[in-house]
């Protein structure tokens, strides 16, 4: 169940708000997914970009879903635990680069 206040505030300030790949977001940042692309998986991954794309979609990383980064790992801040709508999901940063997020305006 989307947090309606959060998504409207993001839409209201469209021009001023930053867009970031989920893979680069920090703990405490939140926003709405605006694009999920078939980005070539990093380095030497043997999985095709399309396959990763499809899996992200099936897991619920779709346009319009609300995400918030809750926790990050100790080593290189990886992996990250994100709240994806009502679910909590652990994901590696490199796999989350194809997910673009329109950040909410930070709460005052």
């Amino acid at each position, binding site marked *: 169940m989307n947090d309606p206040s959060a998504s409207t505030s993001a839409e209201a300030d469209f021009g001023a708000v930053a867009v970031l790949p989920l893979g680069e977001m920090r703990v405490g940042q939140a926003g709405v997914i605006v694009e999920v692309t078939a980005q070539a998986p990093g380095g*030497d991954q043997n999985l095709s970009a399309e*396959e990763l794309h499809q899996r992200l979609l099936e897991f619920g990383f*779709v346009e319009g879903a609300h995400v918030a980064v809750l*926790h990050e790992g*100790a080593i290189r801040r990886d992996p990250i635990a994100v709240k994806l709508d009502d679910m909590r999901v652990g994901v590696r940063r490199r796999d989350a680069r194809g997910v673009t997020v329109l950040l909410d305006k930070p709460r005052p």
Partner: protein
Amino acid sequence: MTARVALVGNPNSGKTALFNALTGSRQKVANYAGVTVERKEGTIVTPGGRTLAVLDLPGTYSLRARSPDEEVTRDAVLGRLAGEDSPDVLVCVADATNLRLVLRLILELKAVGRPMVLALNMYDIAQRQGLRIDVDGLAGELGCPIVTTVATRRRGIDELLSKVDELAARSRFAPAGGWTPPDAAQVRLAHREAQRLLKTYVKPPERPDTLTGRVDAVLLHPVLGLAILFALLFTMFQAVFTWAGPAQDLIEASFTALGELARAALPAGLFRSFLIDGAISGVGSVLVFLPQILVLFLFILLLEDFGYMARAAFLMDRIMGGAGLHGRAFIPLLSSFACAIPGIMSARVIDNKRDRLTTILVAPLMTCSARIPVYALIISAFIPERAVWGMFNLQGLVMFGLYAAGILSALAVSLVIRKVFWRGAVDPFLMELPAYKIPDPANVARNLLQRVMIFVTRAGRIIFPLMIAVWLLCTFPGPPPGAAGPAIDYSFAGMLGHALQPLLAPIGFNWQMTVALIPGFAAREVAVAALGTVYAVADPGADGATLASLLSRQWSFAAGLAFLAWYIFAPQCASTIAVVRRETNSWRWPIVMLAYMTALAYLAAFIVYQTAHALGG
């Protein structure tokens, strides 16, 4: 009248709990995704008199399977297995508090063209949270009946059965469907539709779960979280020693009393020797370790039911990834603490073939519970029981060290495999972190009881017959008249041990240890029982002394340590080899495993023995 019913749904939605409630089975239920990796079948007769063959399946997010466990689900649902049609009725099991992904799955399942009923499971939690679902509206729009269930409390079962009954009666007339793997655009479209359904028919919870967030703030904290993980493991191994003590003393005393009873009641002779030295001391020496195994399982079960496993996997991901292991390898490896066999099987959740094979090959390095008797015996014989730094039990510390050695060597071996043999290739890692649940004491008790049954059956079916064999080999042939030295030297076991011992002399093993390794191949803990029998036959007078105190007099300290080092790696478990053969579908990998583990065992024991010996042990 029979109908085939399949339970499908997202992972961790309670399919197996529902399966158990329906069929009275005792399949494993736990609070993480990927518990079930095989199809399981059970039957039940509905109130309408129809026999249902119920199929429990691994959870999945899509029929477009990507790992071996999900393929099982896909093939069962689509009726692609040889000699099997697709099920007459599908029961889609949903976590009522987490509907988004399952709604999309339902849209996909509808294309299969089988009659379906949606079980809104965990309805107790939904109600507690004040989540309101317009069941009738949703059912109307989805075009399938909905029942609310609480699988763990067996609520809603009758209603579910009557719905299945109705659908089964009409299933022959259902139009055949044609499922094709959805492409990205179709998945997006289905998500949008699922979102619309959610908005229309589900009111957000009035009292959402805040516990999970608050607990995660501590348990997933980058520093604190890791510290807690290690503290937990540490406590677990300390507890294995300290908590189990009284119960162990009790079991030990009962077996000694039983031996005394037999000694008093029976005339001296072969039969008495068989009963006391073979049966009672052999089986008793293994059963004594049951309390320790139960303490270990108690910890694992509580962590599993609480929902900690996925968190532990999250915390360890980077460390395991550094060693070239797949993120999902954590749970198979952790299950291997209980026994490598379920661990190796749960590697099916890993999609990439090489990642899966790497996990399978290193899983037996994790210290399984069958090693507990061996470790515990040698530790109590050679490591004094005293406090270290005022608070830790030295024996517990050594036990922890042995477990750590197993874990580190698993990481090292997988690193070698990945760096030397299969470079590159890292698969994506997406894992649901389930909401925490307070473990259900009844479930934990049931599972512990199941462990007791497994252990005792093993003692009866494997250990007891082997002990008879060991006793026979230790007793016959008897010594020639007038022979010097102990009688056992002339027995088959004695001859075999003396013949093979030179091979193991460099690692400090005497002939009794050598003999014990052989039946240990059937099951590791039998080595302990065999030592019990070998020493009991050799020296029936020493009966009052415990095996541990006997060993501490007979073996050098260095030899004791070498024996421990050997068992960190020892590949001796016939059933593990058989399971690797089955899971990899070739003899190649079990042989590779046997070879590399034996080599490591020998090497480790050699280094330990020679070092300890040189230092005067």
